[in-house]
């Protein structure tokens, strides 16, 4: 968790190896991501799934083909098995009936769930979620929230959820890290964080408008600027 622009998505992209760190190391399943060759990186990526903020469904394919896509591209499974696999995953997100729809026909929440099925279809060990709740109505949000926790437990995976929806995430997270300006400023179970002694963490957890994260973007003196003193 953390305010917008503190590097949460950047962190996820480093875990998947889309970005390389300028300093420091990122280790996933014991492997240092930045030092892997392209093939090794691709092998590692087959063990993870990622849900993008805007779902990133392939707009030319229908729901079924979107979920089948990573299976078709990465394996040589027979068609009958792919069908079973895809329908099972779609059923687990409640969209088996939407298999024939095109991405443009889906609501934001449904798109997110299809992307979730796609991210899970190869049974990854690690699932990454980038702002899975942004722009969802309360019902869709509740569904996605529940699915994240359910799938995590049912498939025995590790889920990393990047979000700034404090209240929602507190319901399902085992452990939270609060990031600000590229640093971890607090970590612990959600309840511990709410009672944190750090003002910044409390501002974030309660959503106060002003505090250590100021309401105003840094600017020259207000009176001086209004009175028109040339800079």
């Amino acid at each position, binding site marked *: 968790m953390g305010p917008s622009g503190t590097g949460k998505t950047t962190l996820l992209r480093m875990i*998947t190896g*889309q970005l390389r760190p300028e300093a420091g190391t990122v280790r996933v399943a014991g492997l240092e991501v930045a030092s892997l060759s392209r093939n090794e990186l691709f092998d590692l990526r087959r063990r993870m*799934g990622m849900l993008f903020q805007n779902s*990133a*469904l*392939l*707009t030319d394919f229908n729901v079924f083909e979107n979920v089948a896509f990573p299976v078709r*591209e*990465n394996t040589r499974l027979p068609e009958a098995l792919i069908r079973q696999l895809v329908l099972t995953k779609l059923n687990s997100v409640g969209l088996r009936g939407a298999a024939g729809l095109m991405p443009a026909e889906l609501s934001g929440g449904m798109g997110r769930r299809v992307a979730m099925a796609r991210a899970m279809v190869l049974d990854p060990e690690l699932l990454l979620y980038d702002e899975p709740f942004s722009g969802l109505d309360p019902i869709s949000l509740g569904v996605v929230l529940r699915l994240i926790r359910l799938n995590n437990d049912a498939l025995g995976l590790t889920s990393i959820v990047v979000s700034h929806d404090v209240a929602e995430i507190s319901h399902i997270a085992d452990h939270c890290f609060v990031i600000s300006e590229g640093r971890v400023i607090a970590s612990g179970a959600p309840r511990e964080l709410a009672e944190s002694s750090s003002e910044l963490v409390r501002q974030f957890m309660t959503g106060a408008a002003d505090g250590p994260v100021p309401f105003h973007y840094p600017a020259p003196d207000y009176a001086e600027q209004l009175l028109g003193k040339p800079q």
Partner: protein
Amino acid sequence: MTLPLQLWEGLLHSLRKLGAAILFLIEILKQCPAALARPRLISQQVRNSGVLSLIIIMTSAFFVGMVIGLQGYDSLSRLRQEDILGAGVALTLFKELGPVVTALLFAGRAGTSLASEIGLMRATDQLAAMEVMAIDPIRRIVAPRFIGAVISVPLLTAVFNAVGVLGAWFIGVQIMGVDNGAFWSQMQEYVDPPDIYEGVLKSFVFGTTAGLVAVFEGYNAPPTAEGVGMATTRTVVTTSILVLILDYTITAYLL
């Protein structure tokens, strides 16, 4: 900034872009064997950029053929040499106009759609999603589209040439009264295999150019509405200029 400095900066910018495009081409060529192993993806692209361009290519070719037939007839009849109209039209089309006009039309019809398609996939994170799914977007998306263009442009050029000759025949023989036998026999007499090879070579070079520019611009388009729009425009402008420069270079080298 002074003018010479601006020109220098512009030159540097173009050179950097050329270098990036060549590196991108190498990257694509490395993925081509894997892409060629999936002929269905390629035939789909040949359909999208080739078959769907047929109407514009054939319509343009017929009118281009008619106008060269008309102009050729006008010039040749002053010399009382109307009989070699067929040869003149065929040489003009096979060596020059066929490959060049086809490539220009291809850039406008298919290059733009390739660039905006790939640019939009980038803007909506579809390419990033593939990367994370351990699917190389160069292999899955870019290479088949590039190969599709390299295959389509020579085929479209052949169609252009054939329809162009028919257009000239229609005007020359049917309307202006050039002798039908002379039209075809003079064409056979004067058009030699090297003339055909020149056109074929050009059409492959232009197909590679048009394909590369389109996928390069699309792949590197800034992920915004304006970015994709600009990439589409640049595809047409860059392809057109490169095709005309390359056309002169190849002609000068071969003649």
